[in-house]
């Protein structure tokens, strides 16, 4: 019997036994859906964390010189209190470090706090007020959609100009172009010179509710005591150069702070890697637990299919007997059932892939969890889910095909 014939036969039988076919596809379907769906969440979180989260908070090949780490998870109280006692980073520290670095870097000052921004009676509350120097926009990859960033001159002079985040601009200026208008922060007017392109959100928190003004402008009073910054941001061209710059910065800071060799640093240098540490710990657990769960789902699905197929084959033993009595060889029977099981598994796997992808898209739409379907999970789902389906379909048939035709025919 040619293979094409087996496929035609299989499709005929599937059409003839709709209900049984539906049931046998369900096992594969559930396994594949679950695998792709669950995997996409872990995968999405991972990509999100490595690409966006860490990149957004710290930046690539970038370190932040701070009093203490900004991003931290589960820190002990005593450690936290010791951080609070550390001296702050001064303008003078930032300048000294910047001057001492011999590798090519771009630097910016950075301070932030929360506060309100007003425009003609409208008040936007809980806005991130940021005092920075001009290179901040480059370092953090903030693209100005409308207008311009502030210039080095404006930065040095502390001119009262601001660049708005996308959401803030739209809240205060729903109908007019904000460029050239004055917003007020704590009563002081600042001229809007630019609006940053929309950035979206991070774990459900908007990244577009901020205002950036020169660090030397009066905004300094809102964000830090005089002469103090939250961070000096240093961006190098490559990872090794960043490491080199960090060593140089550390040396400068230690000497300025008169630390003896045995004393620990009383400042922090934060990189995106540090931020990722926490996530890596978490994702290791997810990657270990996730496939385990998926494996269980597939095994259970496989047993379900196997049982359905066993029942189906028992019922179809008569059919196998008839076919054998008419001259079907064992391998003809096997081929027929293989084609049938493959077709069912393919349908199940395809539906599973589509539903898994749909699930992940849905998840991304309705929850802050980022989901991203990994091609590997699709391959794995098809191989494992489909394989389980095919084996479950063929194994019982191969047993029935071994019977004498009359034995098979006698079975009811």
């Amino acid at each position, binding site marked *: *019997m*040619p293979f094409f*014939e087996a496929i035609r*036969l299989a499709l*005929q*039988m599937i059409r*003839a*036994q709709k209900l049984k076919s539906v049931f046998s596809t369900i096992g594969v379907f559930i396994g594949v859906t679950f695998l792709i769906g669950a995997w996409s969440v872990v995968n999405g979180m991972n990509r999100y964390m490595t690409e966006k989260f860490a990149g957004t908070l710290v930046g690539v090949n970038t370190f932040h010189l701070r009093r203490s780490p900004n991003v931290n998870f589960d820190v002990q109280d005593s450690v936290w209190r010791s951080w609070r006692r550390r001296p702050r980073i001064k303008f003078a520290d930032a300048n000294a470090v910047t001057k001492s670095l011999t590798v090519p870097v771009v630097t910016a000052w950075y301070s932030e706090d929360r506060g309100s921004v007003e425009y003609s009676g409208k008040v936007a509350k809980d806005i991130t007020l940021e005092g920075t120097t001009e290179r901040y926009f480059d370092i953090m990859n903030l693209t100005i959609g409308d207008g311009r960033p502030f210039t080095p001159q404006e930065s040095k002079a502390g001119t009262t100009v601001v660049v708005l985040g996308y959401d803030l601009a739209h809240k205060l200026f729903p109908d007019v172009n904000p460029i050239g208008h004055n917003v007020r922060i704590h009563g002081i007017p600042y001229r809007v010179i630019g609006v940053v392109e929309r950035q979206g959100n991070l774990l459900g928190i908007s990244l577009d509710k901020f205002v950036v003004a020169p660090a030397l402008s009066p905004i300094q009073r809102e964000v830090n005591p005089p002469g103090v910054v939250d961070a000096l941001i240093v961006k190098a061209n490559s990872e090794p150069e960043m490491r080199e710059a960090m060593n140089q910065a550390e040396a400068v800071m230690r000497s300025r702070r008169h630390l003896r060799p045995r004393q620990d640093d009383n400042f922090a240098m934060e990189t995106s890697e540090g931020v990722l540490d926490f996530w890596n710990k978490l994702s290791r657990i997810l990657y270990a637990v996730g496939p385990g769960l998926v494996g269980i789902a597939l095994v259970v699905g496989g047993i379900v299919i196997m049982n359905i197929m066993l029942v189906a084959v028992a019922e179809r033993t*008569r*059919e196998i*007997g*008839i*076919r*054998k*009595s*008419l*001259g*079907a*060889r*064992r391998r*003809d029977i096997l081929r027929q059932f293989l084609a049938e099981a493959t077709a069912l598994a393919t349908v199940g796997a395809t539906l599973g892939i589509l539903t898994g992808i749909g699930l992940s898209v849905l998840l991304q739409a309705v929850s802050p969890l980022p989901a991203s379907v990994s091609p590997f999970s699709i391959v794995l789902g098809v191989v494992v889910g489909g394989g389980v389906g095919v084996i479950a379909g063929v194994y019982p048939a191969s047993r029935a095909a071994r019977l*004498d*035709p*009359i*034995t098979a*025919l006698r079975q009811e």
Partner: protein
Amino acid sequence: MTALQPFRTGDTPLPDIVILTHKLTRDYDMGGEVVRALRGVSLQIRKNEYVAVMGPSGSGKSTFMNLIGCLDTPTAGEYWLNGQKVSDLSDDELARIRNKEIGFVFQTFNLLPRATALHNVELPLIYAGQPARERREQAARALTSVGLGDRMDHRPNELSGGQRQRVAIARALVNQPSILLADEPTGNLDSATSAELMQVFRDLHRGGQTIVMVTHEHDIAAHAARVVTLRDGVIATDQLQAA
């Protein structure tokens, strides 16, 4: 017709002998208790003979038919089909014999319930490896020849008992087998339909077909030229009769 020579182990059958069994035995092991369904049946059937097998219920008629139809394996004894010793054949060769040499008509029809009449008749041709178009034409011809040319797309449950049996006959004959075996072919049919079926068998026999048929009914057996009677798994009588 010359008398048949007795067969001894080590002999080979004469050329015009289609079926030859020698001390054919079939035991069923029923969990310790052995049922001896056939206990040494020796029989020779020539080309174009029309044989009726009779005997009381449980005498081993079906067991014998299944063995010569290669649907079952004997416990002991020899079975030669067309000069070939069947007991020596491999699984695949047996499948080929069932496909090409034997047409089997069952009392319960044994049609695929979900397939059309045409597809049912096509099955032996599928396993013979015939291309689809030829196969369909040949199956259609076979159905037409049993008077079912207008019922090809019907499923078994849309056909009467007599029609189902004719589908089964078309299927049995579609590969032009050297023997037609029928186990109580009229068992599930009324007398009018049985008579029609006997007409079909008579025509086939006249056309040169070798036929072995099991029956309980004497008026059905009367159509055959030779009647073999089994009793307790052995041949009790073997008689020629006038047609």
